[in-house]
């Protein structure tokens, strides 16, 4: 817990353990992430990074451990909440390692679906919406405005009415981030957002993530294999290996940590892209 802002952690992960039958995917992992900071989680394939996200976002129920989110004015114990409530109430948003857009729906529709809960309330659970009440129409216009803002930021304005599945890969990655941001989260979890991007796209992504940290002021949890991304933009790094936390700290410290070097160089397949 070194160079982070003084506000106290946004999310605190304590003694998180996740077992699948005999396999221990996460073994007693603790760390914290702060607002206005990018916290990277790195580690070789199969280290348990995605599983950490799945526990935080309610897709898996942790075998043990506590996940505390200090969100807007309230504390949430994430491990006790049902899947969708984590997005709805605790305001944690995520992207997926293999992109999960609503492929048949347009780019704009993807961003509108992300604002579902807000719009449901405004539409009076569809009753006012069916009647075409003005207050709902205003809320919808505002939602379109937010979507437009994000389309601007990810440079997809011209593609707004195209089916999301038709976009090139790099655009889909950014759209998924924009979709998560349209839920107006306090914590954004990104699972390998740079995977499969070319160097130019990767640099653009760096800028986007930095601007999310600095302009939107939320906390970002970032799983990434691309070390140029990780070392450049993260404020804090957590290293996992075989489900255990083996190191943690600022980029420079982690880069020179012997345990980390061993974990990465010790396995053949990671040596060249690490």
């Amino acid at each position, binding site marked *: 817990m070194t160079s982070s802002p003084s506000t106290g952690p946004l999310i605190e992960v304590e003694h998180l353990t996740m077992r*699948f039958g005999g396999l221990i995917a996460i073994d007693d992992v603790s760390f914290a992430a702060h607002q206005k900071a990018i916290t990277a989680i790195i580690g070789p394939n199969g280290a348990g990074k*995605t599983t950490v996200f*799945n526990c935080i976002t309610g*897709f*898996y129920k942790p075998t043990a451990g506590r996940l505390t989110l200090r969100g807007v004015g309230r504390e949430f114990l994430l491990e006790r909440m049902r899947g969708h409530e984590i997005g709805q109430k605790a305001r944690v948003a995520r992207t*997926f390692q293999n992109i*999960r857009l609503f492929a048949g729906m347009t780019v704009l529709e993807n961003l509108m679906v992300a604002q579902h809960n807000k719009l449901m309330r405004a539409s009076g659970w569809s009753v006012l919406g069916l009647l075409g009440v003005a207050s709902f129409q205003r809320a919808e216009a505002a939602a379109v405005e937010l979507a437009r803002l994000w389309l601007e930021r990810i440079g997809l304005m011209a593609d707004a009415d195209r089916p999301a599945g038709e976009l090139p890969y790099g655009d889909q990655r950014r759209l998924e981030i924009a979709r998560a941001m349209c839920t107006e989260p306090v914590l954004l979890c990104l699972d390998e957002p740079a995977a499969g991007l070319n160097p130019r796209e990767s640099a653009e992504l760096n800028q986007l993530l930095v601007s999310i940290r600095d302009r939107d002021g939320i906390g970002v949890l970032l799983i990434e294999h691309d070390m140029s991304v990780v070392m450049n933009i993260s404020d804090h790094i957590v290293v996992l290996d075989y489900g255990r936390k083996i190191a943690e700290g600022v980029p420079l410290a982690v880069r020179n940590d012997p345990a980390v070097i061993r974990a990465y160089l010790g396995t053949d397949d990671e040596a060249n892209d690490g």
Partner: protein
Amino acid sequence: MAYFTQQLINAITLGAIYGLIAIGYTMVYGIIGMINFAHGEVFMVGAFISLIGFVICSSVGISSAPVAIVLVLLLAMSFSAVYGWAIERTAYRPLRGSFRLAPLISAIGVSIALQNYVQLAQGARPKPGGQVVSGGFNLFTADGFDVRVTWLQIIIVVVTIVLMAGFTWVIARTSLGRQQRACEQDMKMASLLGVNVDRTISLTFVLGAALAAVAGMLFLMYYGVIDFFIGFLAGIKAFTAAVLGGIGSLPGAMLGGLLIGLIEVFWAGYFSSEYKDVAVFAILVLVLIFRPSGLLGKPEIEKV
């Protein structure tokens, strides 16, 4: 007590038939994760081929029951297997990689088409036949009630046990079984390692269909009458059996079949025969809600 024992014997017989059909559901589900809705219809086709086989036997003068049964068994198994193969080849294989519900919708289509095909070709009226074995013996008599076991019931149970044993051996010991299990685990990886995935899936359908045909023959011999619609109910009951036992698990299918046989027979024997099907459907619903992995299946956690 005597009544109870009699019901138990009847239930085991019926359960054996359901179990044989259930194996087809469970194997296909295990390997490609789809509910082969048309499987009940393959059972029905198997029953019809058996019916025709028995008539042929008697018209060419084969009067020995064991010979006729073995011949018809082979006939029904091999020709129903062609149905299993053709269905997979034309209606399911082209849909791998299509959207999630496509194979199920296609399977419903196959099911409707097969029912009406048999109805058109063979007529809608129930067909009597297949009663080549009769007689039996009294097990014991109590409270003035004879507990009877028929030879046919013994044949049904023995055939089922023999097939189950052979089948378990195929899955556990042969290369086909190994390839099947490899495909169940990870189809892409299996094909990279040189498993012929298409062939393995085809063979799964062929085996499932052959077993369903045996069930069809036994069903015909047991009830002595069939029509083009028997596949629907029997199919759903067998599917319930597969789910109850744990879909994907072979012993589960057999166990589930037995349980469904028990539930159906005892419900009809002690409560009301009108609602016996409702009882089975209710079990299907309850198991899926409360224990979708069944009795012997392993729970699935979806990876995201």
